[in-house]
């Protein structure tokens, strides 16, 4: 697992409101089906922006951007985000 993906999973654990452990989720698992609400996804987005020092453009603010660990990782890649230095 890349450092960026580990950080995505950590932020999902803190802000995603998921009933399961984000660390062990299948990368393709649908986070909304698992119970992440739209409101929680906003918190995840803001936490990602803080952690990766990025800003999601309006055109990326759609459900599919945040629907899975892999989708979020792909979006971060698209934005050229680097894993935060811990």
């Amino acid at each position: 697992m890349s450092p960026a993906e580990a950080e995505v999973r950590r932020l999902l654990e803190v802000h995603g409101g998921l009933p399961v452990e984000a660390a062990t989720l299948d990368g393709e698992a649908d986070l909304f089906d698992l119970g992440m609400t739209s409101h929680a996804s906003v918190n995840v987005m803001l936490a990602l922006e803080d952690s990766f020092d990025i800003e999601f453009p309006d055109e990326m603010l759609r459900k599919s951007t945040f629907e899975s660990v892999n989708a979020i990782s792909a979006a971060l890649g698209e934005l050229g985000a680097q894993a935060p230095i811990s």
Partner: protein
Amino acid sequence: MEIDGFELRVGTDVQSIAEVAESIAHFGDRYVRRLYTDHEVECCGGVRVESAPGLAARFAAKEATIKLLRLTDDDPGWRSIEVRRRPGGWCDLSLSDGAQRLAEEAGVRHLSMSMSHGAGVATATVVGLCQAGARS
């Protein structure tokens, strides 16, 4: 239900007030400005945790509107769905930008809404009159 070429649609949502208060406390202005318009923030008392009940009701109204529009992955933009408080004290919805476009595509002609909060949650229901046969 279809009446004289119009379809009646409804959307409803409930939002935890504590979750909104937590988001305000954690992300502050960035959270509030990403989701709510200046008018909405002003009506609820500004960017502070005490504004959470009103903002939670407005978030529920935005979600209820999205449900009424039956969107899957189209995101209208949270701020393009605005709860307007009228001088008499009641509220209604004002759509702009993405929400307005998607509502037109869905054949929405009239929207009406109601919000409430208490016992830790806020709720909103939106009713819409849409041209039958428009995108569902």
